[in-house]
Each structure stands twice: as structure tokens, then as C-alpha cells.
């Protein structure tokens, strides 16, 4: 069983909403990444999303763009990202890892080769930001053969027929982009979430993660009321940007995520089924 499926099954049984931090591999420095991931798990992360640096991150805002540029400048490419995953897996064989990035580096490595290497390294899911369901058939086949889920984004503007298309290919969970815009662009409107998530659930039978625009414990807690998972990216990456040592990065992750986890756990504990019914 894919670790993502296992993890969401366990969370469901525990009536716990997943906390999913995003960090860019190699940022703020390459030797910090694995320590950051372990620190995130220790602080209550249930899944981790690891950004694969790319030179032209069209769908990301300035914070993540800067992180990618810094990571690239320090030599973090796809090969190094896979090494970091292998390294992480030495001490953590349970926490699902989702790689998130852009199509060209994977295309250059060869999608088939990448899928094999990623599976071998211990990757569980792949989210290619610039590969919507329309262009994903071939890649999806290659990933499926390796037991890797392809994660898709859905947006407030995603039409019914596009939801159906994504439903056919998606695995693991669905990543609901909660705002119009790039990562970190604006704050989330929690009120508008419930009807949208309901729409997604009606079409796609997978856990729904909400991301883009969640920066504070209170927001994460509010999102927990309707979503199965809360993704926090830019706000964390922004704090990591100021760290100048591995120790500092680890402390930053812990200090940032622990209150988020706490706020999520203290918000009205409803099970996923209840949430689905309420919305």
C-alpha cells in the first residue's frame, strides 16, 4: 500500500486532520533539508512536500521563487533531491513524501527513469504544477507502474468536466488551491472553502488537502474544520529563508509548525465523515 493511502487511512481512524508542510529542497542550504523534514515530522507533520528546484517557477510567488533560485545556486537539482529522499528514508520509513515541481527537469531526466528512481528512493506522490490532467496521461502510466500517486491541483475555477478528468488520474489526495493566484499571494478566505470542498468531494473520492494562502495557526485550524489536510508552504519557506545554519532551520521548523499542529488539534475534533456530512 502506498504510504499516502496508509497515512490517510490512519488519520481517518484517529479523526485527525493532516498537517502537510512544504519546503524547497536545498533551501536555505542543501545540508539542512533532511534535518528540516525530520523536524517537521517531529513537530506534527503527517506528510511532507518537497519542492524540486526549477529555474522558472511560473505558478509560484516571490517567496518560493527565491527559495528555488537559492537552492539551484547551491547545486540542488533532481539528482540531489532524490538523494535527500533516500537520506530521509534511512530514519523514517512511514511518513509519505510528495515531490512537487515542474515538468522540464523530469522530462530531461526521462519520465520513466525518474519514476523508477523516485520509487526506489522512497517517494510516494508527485505533483507537477505545470502538468494538468490534460497532459498527464503518459506520465501517470509511468508513475502508476511504480506505485507513485500523481497528485493534481484543483482550483476554485476548475470546471466539472475538468474535475472528472482529474478524478480519473488522481491518486493519494487532491490538492485544492484555495485562492486565485500564485503561492503565498494572498490570504485564504475560509468561508468560501466549504462549498468548494463539497464540490470536489462529489467528484473525486480522495482526501482533500487545502493549500496556497494558509499562514497562521488560526487559519490552519479553521481549514481543519472542512479539509482532510492543511498544506503550509510559503509562510514556512519565508521563515527558513532567514536561517543561516542547520540548527537554526530545525528550530525554525519546530517553532513554526508546533503551534499550527496544536491549533489544528484543538479545533473542534470532527471526523472526516462528519465534516463531509456537515458541508
Amino acid at each position, binding site marked *: 500500500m502506498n504510504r499516502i493511502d496508509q497515512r490517510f487511512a490512519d488519520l481517518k481512524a484517529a479523526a485527525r486532520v493532516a498537517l502537510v508542510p512544504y519546503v524547497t529542497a536545498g533551501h536555505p542550504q542543501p545540508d539542512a533539508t533532511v534535518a528540516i523534514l525530520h523536524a517537521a515530522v517531529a513537530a506534527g507533520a503527517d506528510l511532507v512536500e518537497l519542492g524540486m528546484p526549477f529555474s*522558472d517557477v511560473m*505558478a509560484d510567488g516571490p517567496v518560493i521563487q527565491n527559495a528555488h533560485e537559492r537552492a539551484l545556486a547551491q547545486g540542488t537539482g533532481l539528482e540531489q533531491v532524490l538523494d535527500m529522499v533516500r537520506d530521509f528514508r534511512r530514519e523514517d520509513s512511514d511518513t509519505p513524501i510528495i515531490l512537487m515541481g515542474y515538468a*522540464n527537469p523530469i*522530462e530531461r531526466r526521462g519520465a520513466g527513469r525518474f519514476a523508477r528512481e523516485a520509487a526506489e528512493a522512497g517517494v510516494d506522490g508527485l505533483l507537477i504544477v505545470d502538468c*494538468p490532467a490534460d497532459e498527464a496521461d503518459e506520465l501517470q502510466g509511468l508513475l502508476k507502474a511504480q506505485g507513485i500517486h500523481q497528485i493534481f491541483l484543483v482550483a476554485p*475555477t*476548475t*470546471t466539472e468536466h475538468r474535475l472528472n478528468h482529474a478524478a480519473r488520474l488522481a491518486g493519494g489526495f487532491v490538492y485544492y488551491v484555495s485562492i*486565485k493566484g500564485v503561492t503565498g499571494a494572498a490570504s485564504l478566505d475560509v468561508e468560501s472553502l466549504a462549498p468548494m470542498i463539497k464540490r470536489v468531494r462529489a467528484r473525486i473520492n480522495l482526501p482533500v488537502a487545502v493549500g496556497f494562502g494558509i499562514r497562521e495557526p488560526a487559519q490552519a485550524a479553521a481549514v481543519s474544520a472542512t479539509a482532510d489536510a492543511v498544506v503550509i508552504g510559503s509562510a514556512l519557506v519565508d521563515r527558513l529563508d532567514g536561517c543561516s545554519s542547520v540548527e537554526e532551520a530545525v528550530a525554525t521548523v519546530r517553532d513554526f509548525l508546533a503551534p499550527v499542529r496544536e491549533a489544528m488539534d484543538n479545533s473542534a475534533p470532527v471526523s472526516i465523515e462528519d465534516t463531509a456530512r456537515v458541508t
Partner: protein
Amino acid sequence: MVEQALKVEQQESLPDVGGHFGIFGGRFVSETLMPALEELDEAWRHYLKDPDFLAEMDRDLAHFVGRPSPLYLAENLTREVGGARIVLKREDLNHTGAHKINNTVGQGLLARAMGKRRVIAETGAGQHGVASATIAARLGMDCVVYMGAEDVRRQSVNVFRMKLLGAKVVAVESGSRTLKDALNEAMRDWVTNVDDTFYILGTVAGPHPYPAMVRDFNAVVGREARAQMLTEYGRLPDALVACVGGGSNAIGLFHPFIDDTEVAMYGVEAAGRGLSGHEHAASLCAGRVGVLHGSRTYLLDDDSGQIRHTHSISAGLDYPGVGPEHAWLKDCGRAQYVGISDSEAMEAFHALTRREGIMPALESAHAIAYGLKLAAELSRDKIVLINLSGRGDKDINTVAELEGIEF
């Protein structure tokens, strides 16, 4: 008008409904942009068959842009070269000084028809930014132009022109600070402000429908040139030559000739300081297939798939990708793609200026340079038609700097 609508319908055979030219093209964008692209696709298909829309566009092309642009026989250069006759399609005579206005008039009218109040654009040399600011001024729309900080420096005259026209110019400091980064930034703006904003993309790159739509708006160049050749020379040219950055002026010229298989097509890329290193912008000559800016195409990247910084003296050609239809034309062999170096382009810039009294844009000077080479190899009964896509006034600072001249 009916004839034009029919022509457009025929052109719809490629790309397919998802925007693919063979393996190239498509829509490699974040899901957040997909609905906007679908809305645009629908509007474009609708209005290109709407007689009122087409009539207004034709009126603007005639009275605002100054079309048709003439064909000009470059007699002095023809004599000097001693080969094929050299004929120039004078897109440099258009309002705002380049072919870019053809597309911005079309997209500007489309933006208005779609009820958008704000337009954004990316620009390299500044020509597309100026053309976008121009149509925005005429249609009374807000306009924001994204321009790489390096290009802002190189093309300060065009930056000032855009500001005079009422546009806000945003200098993009990320990445290589050139056209590709401006495009990234424009996409970010669009995805954030998609409700009221129309993105006027300036070239035949990007996600579908841009490559096909920008082609259709620029194909007026080739349609005119084809008819003018038949009227003025009683025949089609033997070869077409056009410079290729993203490739809009080249596709505009090539497309109406695609079925005329006796007409050879040459796209001229910026070979910069030479194709052997990385200081060039020749994605078709020296690149490989990948995914950039929303489409699968030839591009310049390193072995880990990171997009390379490119180089050309011409800001408008300084782009690591290329329109997917060019990638397709290359692979199916219908068009050939060649490189012209910075110094060859400079030589051609001076040759056209001194011999014909026409100062070409540095982009177009690449096409002139290859056109002269090609004409020299061909016999006197042949005709080479070169797209003179823009005028060189915007480049005089660059030329002066290269030659160590201070004003």
C-alpha cells in the same frame, strides 16, 4: 471578410483541440490557469468567425496600423550580392515600428469583446510592450508591461514610450532578468487577476490558444505578402526568411505559404557568440525538446533541465524557447532553421542602413543577414522574400554602445 473567416477555419486543422502541433504545444500550466485559457480559447474561436469583429480589426489594421505594408525590392543589395532578387516585407513601416502591433490590435479588440478592463503584457525588446501600451491607450484600458530588468536597461527608449502611452512598466529582477522572466511574471499576474485581466502574449509561444491565436493575428503579414508577390511579381517567392525568437513574425509570414511547397522557408535564430557554446538563443538549432512556459517545444536547458540564460545582442530574440509550431515545422521538415551571430547581424544592420537607407531592428537584421547569404547562393531569376519585422530606431543605443560611441 467571408474569405478571411474561411481561411481561419482551414488553419484550425493544426493545432488540435488541445493545442498540439504533433508532439509540440499543448497546455502545460497550473490548473489555476486552465479555466482562463479555456475561456480565451472559446472567445478566440468565436470572434474570429464574427464578421463585425473581423471588420473592426481590418479597419484598425488599415487606418491605425497602416496596412498593407509594402513589398520593397532592395535593388542596391540585390546588385551587390549578385544573386537572387531581395524583396523586403516592410513590417517596419507599421505604426509603432514592428509587426507586433498586428497581434496586439487583435488581442486588444478581443480583450474588449470579452469585457476585460485591464491588459498585461511581457516584452523583450520592448516592441510588444509598446504595441500593447498603444492598443491599451486607444481602447482606454489599464496596461501593465512586465520587462526583464536587463532589457529595461537595454531598451530605455521603448520603456519611456510605454510610459508616455500610460502603461506601467514593471522591471522583473528574477532569473536572467530578460524576456523569459518577464513572461513568468506576466503569467503570475494573470493567474492572480484573471477575472478582469487579459494577458496579451506577444509571441507564438506559451500555452494554447496563444501559439495559434497569435499566429492567426500575425498571418495578415503572409496573406498580404503572398497576394502582393502575385500582383507585383506574377509569382511566389522562392524562399521566405524571417528571424525567430518566440517566432511570431516568422509564423505570420510562413503560415499562409505552408501549402505552397515550392516556397522554401528559413527561420533565423540568434547564434549570439556562436552555437558551440551557450552564449546564443538558438533553441531550434541547438536545443532539445522540453516543457517551458506552457508548451512542449525546443528549448535551451542544462542537463538537469534548468532553463539556461541565453544571449543575443537583440533583446527580442533573447529567449530560451520557441513557439511550438516552429518546432513542428522543423521536425516535419517544412521549414529550416539557421543561426546568425551577433556580428553577422551587426554587419547586416549596417549594410541595409547604408545601402538601402533602411535601418532594421537588430532582430530583423538577423533575417537580413541570412537572406543576403541565401540570395548570394541562388541564381538571379530567384526571389528571396525577407520579413523586415521592425525598424531599428529602438536599437541605436545598443549599436552605439557596441561600437564605443557616446552621445
